[in-house]
């Protein structure tokens, strides 16, 4: 018995023409995180899932250099994450989180780049997750995200500016004498003009302020050395004497003054992570990794007051071209199987298709030109989404026109390519084999499941093709789609749910399971902290059978249930994500038992944000997010074995943000929405 990496699906599009070259039309980023500006005003960007650092001119018109490949050698990275510029020397520091180390890169005006030193992975330091980094007065501070202290706390590590280890900070002692503050999964760091360190303390959803000795510096508005009440805390930047917290509110940047007083929000962002001050006045760089985008914005933060919301002006945006053939973007879920029995993918007129695709690309460029610099951030993101979405419709019509489709739609592996608003499918599972199939999906479509009724339902057009059940995270609507051969598209068969907290409503639905004993549809209603069981009547109408669970940490309660599976006996297994456990229920929703406990561990029943679950032949497969592991259990909850790996090496099956897994015929399909591919693992009994 064993689980091992097999292959991946999702083309890598990282080739660049000879440099320098235009940043327009040549650049497809993969989840870029960190950025910085060097002494010559050039923009450096960590193209994290591509394992390289890119350098652009100050206007971000040209790609000037690309440095690094995947690996653990001297000019190699495994997820280059955050960058910071030395204030005096021509050095850039790069945290190499998957290799547990930090690089110092020296550069010249003509952009010759060489490695000065690599450090942090020596045994006496043994970084476990170097993420945020700041440099000040000859010292360097690194946030060690996955370090595990005596009580599981993370730490800051202080080095000299040339990489000599000095000491660690494992707790922050407030300067007003309160209780020690601990760090859990610290990510971004920043500095104010006095050299105080600001830490995005992700595990607690706070931003902590301390000095270089670990003494907490109190915010006068809160009386504490941290800001809390945040939705998320993935990053922090101190710019224009304001504390900017990307994600402090959903899809916004929260802005506080240096006293910790909330000043307002910058709206119109999607999961922003890194904000870097640019040389021009009131200008900053912002990465939105899941949009594969680096942007330059301008805003006067001094005039943001009274808790109001405001847009920034977008001066430039690059990198978000992620719809090349075979490419996936924010892939979230999978259903079906790779059978390799198909005769193939039909394309009746390849020359005409290329010509039409060329015309669409020209049209896309035209639409982008119509988004001039200075657009408000919310309008820019909405226009960009609309452009992509309209393009999906056009491409669908081209495929329909060309009769360009898979021969056997009942026999495919389907993938929810959420960032591209579409389903893609493959018949053979090869890395570049994903092809769009049928209509554009609604924004926010996340989970999918295949449902084959016991007998044909009224109005069901083709009984041989399973119905596809799709959860929509944003609208709370669950759609059951069927294949319409006349239209050549998936069309709604029925719908249910809708956003809300009422019995028949849903809020942020994620994973879906079909009960093999009776074909009921079970939905992880994560925002309402419950599981909903729906059923299709003999006439095809959906009705609610029951819900179970509520917010809490006692047994039978949930804190963000993200996925569910049901075994052949009708037992329901739920990933209770923020309670770090698997809860087990009978078919009536009665709590039976739970297993798992919070903690690090790649080969144990410890979980840290278990996110997804599926089962086959009496085995349970759990994707454990922070531990970056697929853990295999029997249905009694006994741990059997696991596969693990943190990083972005596509040849090793490593993981960054694995999402809703799917198991079929001894294969585990695990979409990673940050690496933009579906990893395939083989499970041998």
């Amino acid at each position: 018995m064993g689980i091992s990496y097999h292959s991946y699906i999702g083309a890598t599009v990282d080739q660049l023409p000879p440099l320098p070259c235009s940043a327009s039309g040549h650049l497809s980023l993969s989840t870029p995180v960190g950025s910085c500006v060097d002494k010559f005003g050039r923009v450096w960007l960590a193209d994290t899932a591509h394992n390289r650092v890119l350098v652009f001119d100050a206007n971000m018109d040209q790609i000037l250099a690309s440095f690094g490949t995947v690996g653990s050698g001297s000019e190699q990275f495994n997820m280059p994450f955050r960058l910071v510029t030395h204030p005096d020397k021509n050095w850039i520091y790069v945290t190499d989180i998957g290799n547990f180390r930090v690089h110092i890169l020296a550069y010249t005006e003509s952009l010759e780049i060489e490695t000065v030193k690599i450090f942090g992975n020596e045994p006496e330091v043994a970084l476990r997750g170097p993420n945020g980094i700041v440099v000040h007065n000859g010292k360097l501070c690194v946030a060690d995200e996955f370090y595990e202290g005596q009580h599981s706390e993370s730490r800051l590590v202080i080095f000299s500016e040339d990489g000599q280890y000095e000491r660690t900070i494992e707790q922050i002692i407030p300067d007003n004498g309160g209780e020690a503050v601990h760090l859990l999964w610290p990510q971004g760091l920043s500095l104010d003009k006095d050299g105080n360190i600001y830490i995005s303390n992700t595990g607690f959803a706070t931003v902590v302020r301390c000095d270089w000795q670990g003494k907490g510096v109190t915010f006068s508005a809160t009386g504490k050395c941290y800001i809390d009440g945040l939705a998320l805390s993935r990053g922090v930047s101190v710019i224009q004497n304001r504390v900017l917290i990307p994600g402090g509110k959903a899809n916004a940047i929260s802005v506080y003054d240096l006293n910790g007083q909330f000043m307002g929000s910058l709206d119109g962002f999607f999961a922003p992570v890194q904000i870097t001050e640019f040389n021009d006045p009131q200008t900053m760089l912002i990465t939105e990794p899941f949009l594969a985008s680096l942007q330059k914005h301008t805003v006067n933060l001094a005039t943001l007051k009274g808790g109001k919301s405001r847009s920034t002006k977008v001066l430039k945006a690059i990198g978000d071209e992620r719809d090349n053939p075979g490419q996936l973007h924010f892939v979230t879920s999978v259903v079906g199987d790779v059978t390799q029995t198909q005769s193939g993918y039909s394309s009746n007129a390849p020359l005409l298709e290329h010509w039409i695709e060329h015309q669409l690309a020209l049209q896309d460029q035209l639409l982008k030109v119509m988004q001039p610099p200075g657009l408000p951030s919310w309008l820019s993101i909405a226009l960009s989404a609309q452009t992509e979405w309209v393009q999906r419709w056009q491409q669908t019509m081209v495929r329909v026109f060309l009769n360009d489709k898979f021969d056997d739609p009942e026999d495919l592996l389907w993938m929810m390519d959420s960032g591209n608003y579409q389903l893609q499918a493959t018949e053979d599972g090869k890395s570049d084999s994903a092809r769009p199939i049928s209509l554009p999906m609604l924004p926010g479509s996340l989970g999918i499941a295949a449902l084959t009724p016991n007998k044909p339902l009224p109005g069901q057009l083709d009984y041989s093709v399973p119905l596809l059940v799709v959860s929509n995270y944003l609208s709370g609507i669950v759609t059951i789609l069927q294949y319409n051969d006349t239209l050549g598209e998936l069309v709604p068969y029925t719908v249910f749910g809708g956003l809300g907290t009422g019995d028949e409503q849903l809020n942020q639905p994620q994973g879906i399971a079909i009960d093999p004993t009776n074909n009921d549809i079970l939905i992880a209603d994560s925002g309402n902290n419950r599981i909903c069981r729906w059923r299709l009547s003999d006439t095809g109408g959906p009705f609610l059978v029951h819900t179970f669970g509520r917010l809490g940490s006692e047994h039978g309660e949930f804190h963000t249930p993200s996925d569910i599976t049901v075994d052949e006996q009708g037992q329901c297994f739920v990933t209770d994500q923020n309670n770090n456990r698997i809860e087990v229920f009978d078919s009536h929703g009665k709590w039976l038992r739970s297993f798992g406990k919070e903690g690090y561990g790649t080969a144990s029943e410890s979980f840290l944000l278990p996110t997804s679950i599926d089962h086959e032949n009496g085995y349970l497969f759990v994707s454990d997010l922070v531990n970056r592991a697929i853990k295999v259990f029997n249905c009694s909850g006994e741990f059997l074995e696991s596969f693990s790996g943190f990083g972005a090496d596509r040849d090793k099956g490593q993981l960054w943000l694995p999402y809703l897994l799917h198991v079929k015929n001894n294969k585990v399909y695990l979409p990673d929405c940050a690496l933009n591919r579906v990893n395939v693992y083989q499970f041998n009994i």
Partner: protein
Amino acid sequence: MESVFKRAQGKKLSHRKSQEPNGVCQKSEADSKQLMQQFQDVIKHVETNAEDEGSCKDALRRLYTSHETSFSAKKVTGPHE
């Protein structure tokens, strides 16, 4: 000392409980209700006009455009941490 994991879980849970009475965004709930009705209309349209490819596609396009207008700017922030 209680493990940092337990304390972080407790802090997040109490924050979530404090937000729960706020419910969901009223405007989004109204948009969602309207979309549900549009879905029902489209299903009926496709059932009764299955052979009229053009009008079915138009109905689908109108439905999905409504959804896109209501929800595209919000997007999804995926699994956490």
